[in-house]
């Protein structure tokens, strides 16, 4: 599966929001869709499923705020 779909699947599973693919620029933190514990789970899933290392100490929320940004970040880290 490609990165876009894997990221969307992880996000859908975590947030229960099935229509994230229609709101790729929605701010997940500001809207309260992702809280800090869900963010941790997202990072663990991304690391596990896509074999990337996310340096959490450099995790700047604004760089990971929307589905599009998350996908771009994952591609950058691969």
């Amino acid at each position: 599966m490609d990165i876009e779909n894997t990221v969307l699947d992880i996000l859908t599973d975590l947030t229960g929001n099935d229509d994230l693919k229609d709101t790729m620029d929605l701010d997940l933190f500001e809207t309260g869709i992702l809280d800090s514990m869900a963010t941790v789970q997202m990072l663990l899933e991304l690391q596990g499923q896509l074999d990337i290392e996310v340096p959490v100490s450099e995790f700047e929320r604004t760089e990971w705020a929307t589905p599009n940004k998350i996908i771009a970040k994952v591609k950058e880290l691969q």
Partner: protein
Amino acid sequence: MMRAHIIERIDTIAINQPQTVAYQYGAEQHTYADLKTASDRIAHFIQAQALPAGAPVIVFGGQQFEMVATFLGAVKAGHAYIPVEQHSDAERIQQIESVAQPAAVLSWVPEAQLTVKGPVYSATTLAETIATGATDYDQSQQVSGDANFYIIFTSGTTGLPKGVQISENNLLSFVQWANPTFGVADNSRVLIQAPYSFDLSVMDLYPGLCSGATLVILEKEVTNNFKQLFEVLPTLKVNEWVSTPSFVEICLLAPTFDSQHYPELTQFVFCGEELTHQTALKLLERFPETKIFNTYGPTEATVAMTSIEITADLLAQYDRLPIGYTKSDTKTLVVDEQNQVVAADQPGELLISGPSVSKGYLNNSDKTTAAFFEKDGQRFYHSGDLVTQDQSGLIFYKGRTDFQVKMHGYRIELEEIDHHLGQLPQVKQACTVPRYNKAHQVTQLIAYVVPNADQTGDATLTKTLKAALAENTMDYMIPQRFVYQTQLPLSVNGKVDRKALITEVNGNA
């Protein structure tokens, strides 16, 4: 040990070592002398308002120094305090007010729009008081003995929150146990991460202040932004760490969270939810010299009343970690449904009796009678927790006897969420279930909803329901997922079969 009052112990430190730092909040520091002056001024101010004697006051705000000064000021003036977190929604504040009938609200939230019946003293008024007020007050009014010291509100199944009344005697029992057990020393730096409305914060608030420690606050805004969190965390130089296991799991994501980067850390104390084997093992690998304590206790028994040090030997011995041994002034029993004691290693409900057990729920005799009862001349609290206890007295947590779950340290009554969902015009019926991970932790709440006939169960409805719930419940009580069905499974007695749904979500594990 002499049973000095909590207030006297803190004020004695202010007199003997006034310049010791009591509170560090961001770049701000406040000494024990500052704390005494500020709380004396608040006490003077409250007494000058001639509020009804003995009635509690709501203290509304965040994690700033002034909150703690106001807690102590209220107690000095003779009123129990009810800590309410600044992000609480208006509905919850009104519910708490309607149950507690407080004498006043002391608000540290600037511009707070509070629609309550009683007087509200604003942040501006209170700040002026702390800056320039008079410090004399009538000490004979001070809260002591069996009088309420604080009241913490938890959720209630009928939708109305329950106020757990903690007296000075309850708190003293906890403090006198916590201090030698976890060894909070004079001048040691202890972490406060939990909001004051959550009794985990009491874990180091009073043991710390009663022993001359420095309370080091990790602000919620910092916790939420990982980059900032890992910049700030090493600078705090804490010696004693108190948090939920969930929070330390976030920290463990950073490879630099280890004894090399945090050489001052001498102990971790966990409470509020289950400490998993995996987390404890990882911590011990990263911090081989640091002590790890697992503790347990319902708010109704004052923060915690069992503890055990988690060692490498213990990890090798048990797959699911014990919650510890009961503190010496407290008696625990493991009983069956008829309240008869079960044999060692047999599962049963944990009953708790002792000086730290609450007198009950504020202005709620029905719930108090349901949860507190007498057995063989002793007063016990029904914890609702399913445990086993071995021959040596070591207790293991197994789950709940009812439908209460803990997620990220928050106590959530599933029936309360159902109740709120059921009130919404779009919903015919609802049943909320937890989803567990392999380590038995709740990671998600899933609401099974039967929509009313004119509704379509789709993403738009999910959005509408989430927004509607947000108006009268706490954030952590809003289910992450909504599943729409035309009917819910029923058990033999005709009730919604929550257990069947739990099995559907989690399998038979």
